[in-house]
């Protein structure tokens, strides 16, 4: 049998190395997230606290255990979920610029969530389910737009998504105008994407994203084939309808779940997959785990910036991600048009 060329043989080792490097980055970001905050602290104070050398009742220990650690975990899970969600969206719509926030799917979940908030539901399962329903509806609308003919014009799809987003925006404003003053501030912060509304006892619920993560990682090879289009994927043995539906439900579910706690945080699902695709290529068996690690790292750092940006309070983290993401999106669009 012929001897394979070097290009063919690089894969498995590379996957391990890249994931290891990204894990180190994530650990570094988490360490920064634990060390820094509005009440000060330094890089050296973490070890004594985490290893139990400092009494758990001390002020520093309380801040780290009860405030910063849950916050870092939340940022990591939300970032990983949004980034992975963006990656899957880009495959399903076969458009490297697709992103749930941009295309109005987040807007749909916002309508669901805000309606549930106004009715007075609890975050889980009430708001989560309502958000899931809202995003599912907008997603189906988007897929109908994308399904049309074999060659979907990518710009018209984006335009359709932007219009769905605008419509959702109008509905959100309508809902806000109906709500009482006391609720408005809460909803506004939620719309801007804010990790500070989270309560520690909600932490275990975040585990709900795990099944979706596993499913997407398992379906990494079919994801590669789906990028070639439904017919080519089918011709290479993918049960296209089944796989697509599984991915849709899993992705929408995990994104809706985190959105209930984090609010609308945009562009994470665009920035992270895009940068990693440039660095690592398109193979999802590498790209999917890398996106999870990269998304977690990115949002921990953005959240750190949001927490420490000014002393009198916090910025909603969604503002930071949009300030970074929107210009990048414009740049990518410009480059794609050239």
């Amino acid at each position, binding site marked *: 049998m012929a001897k394979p060329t070097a290009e063919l043989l690089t*894969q498995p080792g590379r996957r391990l190395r890249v994931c290891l490097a990204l894990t180190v980055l994530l650990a570094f970001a988490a360490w920064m997230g634990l060390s820094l905050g509005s009440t000060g602290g330094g890089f050296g104070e973490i070890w004594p606290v985490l290893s139990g050398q400092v009494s758990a009742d001390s002020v520093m220990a309380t801040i780290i255990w009860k405030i910063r650690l849950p916050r870092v975990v939340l940022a990591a899970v939300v970032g990983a979920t949004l980034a992975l969600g963006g990656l899957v969206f880009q495959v399903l719509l076969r458009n490297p610029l697709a992103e749930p926030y941009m295309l109005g799917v987040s807007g749909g979940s916002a309508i669901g969530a805000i309606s549930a908030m106004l009715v007075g539901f609890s975050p889980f399962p009430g708001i989560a389910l309502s958000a899931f329903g809202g995003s599912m509806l907008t997603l189906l609308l988007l897929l109908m737009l994308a399904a049309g003919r074999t060659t979907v014009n990518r710009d018209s799809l984006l335009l359709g998504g932007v219009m769905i987003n605008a419509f959702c925006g109008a509905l959100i404003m309508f809902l806000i105008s109906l709500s009482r003053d006391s609720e408005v501030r809460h909803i506004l912060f939620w719309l801007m994407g804010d990790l500070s509304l989270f309560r520690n006892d909600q932490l275990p619920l975040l585990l709900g994203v795990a099944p979706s993560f596993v499913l997407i990682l398992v379906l990494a090879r*079919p994801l590669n*084939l789906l990028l070639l289009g439904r017919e*080519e994927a*089918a*011709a290479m043995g993918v049960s296209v309808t089944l796989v697509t539906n599984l991915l849709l439900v899993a992705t929408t579910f995990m994104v809706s779940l985190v959105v209930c706690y984090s609010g609308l945080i945009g562009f994470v699902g665009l920035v992270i997959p895009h940068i990693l695709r440039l660095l690592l*290529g398109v193979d999802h068996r590498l790209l999917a785990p890398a996106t999870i690690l990269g998304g977690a790292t990115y949002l921990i750092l953005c959240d750190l910036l949001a927490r420490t940006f000014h002393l009198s309070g916090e910025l909603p983290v969604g503002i930071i991600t949009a300030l970074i993401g929107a210009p990048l999106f414009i740049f990518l669009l410009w480059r794609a048009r050239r």
Partner: protein
Amino acid sequence: MKAVAARGLGITYGNRQILRQVDLGVEQGSFLVIIGPNGTGKTSLLKALAGLIPATGEIEILGRPLSGYSRRELARQLAMVPQHPTGDFPFTVAETVLMGRSPHLGLLESEGEHDLGLAQQAMEFTDVVHLAGRHLDELSGGERQRVIIARAICQEPRLILLDEPTASLDPAHQVRIMDLLERLRRKQGVTVIMVSHDLNLAAMYGEQLALMHDGRINALGTPEAVLTEPGLTACYGCRMEVFRTGPADPLRVFPVPEAKVC
């Protein structure tokens, strides 16, 4: 056992009938070229045989009903080379060819030595080894077509279906692709079914030709039987001249511009 046996195939889009009562039998290891004017259902027939679009009637692939195959099982027997392989997302040539192994691998299984060896062979067969690390979107039309054929070969199919693989290629590349398919058929006994607009290539390489018109197969048989002046003229609505340059040469077909029939 035939490679393909289809009886009474029909396809309808809305109220348009794309295929009407098509019967088709293809022997294993043969080379069939489907010809005919634009919009007569050639591509639809090909896709129906690959199970990619629903059709009424019966299709048997290698003696087994098409509906009895799972997607994966079918992809191990039958590979498809589409007319416009897409590439918004730049996979490398090596990655693309290795994708052909997916119907043979479990979900979490990585490609092993065996798969890498097959990919290497397929790339050597279609002469794209030197492109292995390049991205698909950097290649010329002929190179990309050879990569996609390598992917199909890597699938280890017993049938290979191609939709106009030589369209938009210069004559030298057209002949290279056709030679490659002929070698594949001779060496590995793969059944080749392709759609083509090039009647001369069809005459040179096809063992069997199927001439389609308006959703039907008007003539099926050897090039000599199918490429007749009256038959082609009736199908294409334009006078066609058929002749031989020498007794051992293949038939040549040329349209006659001045005397339009329609």
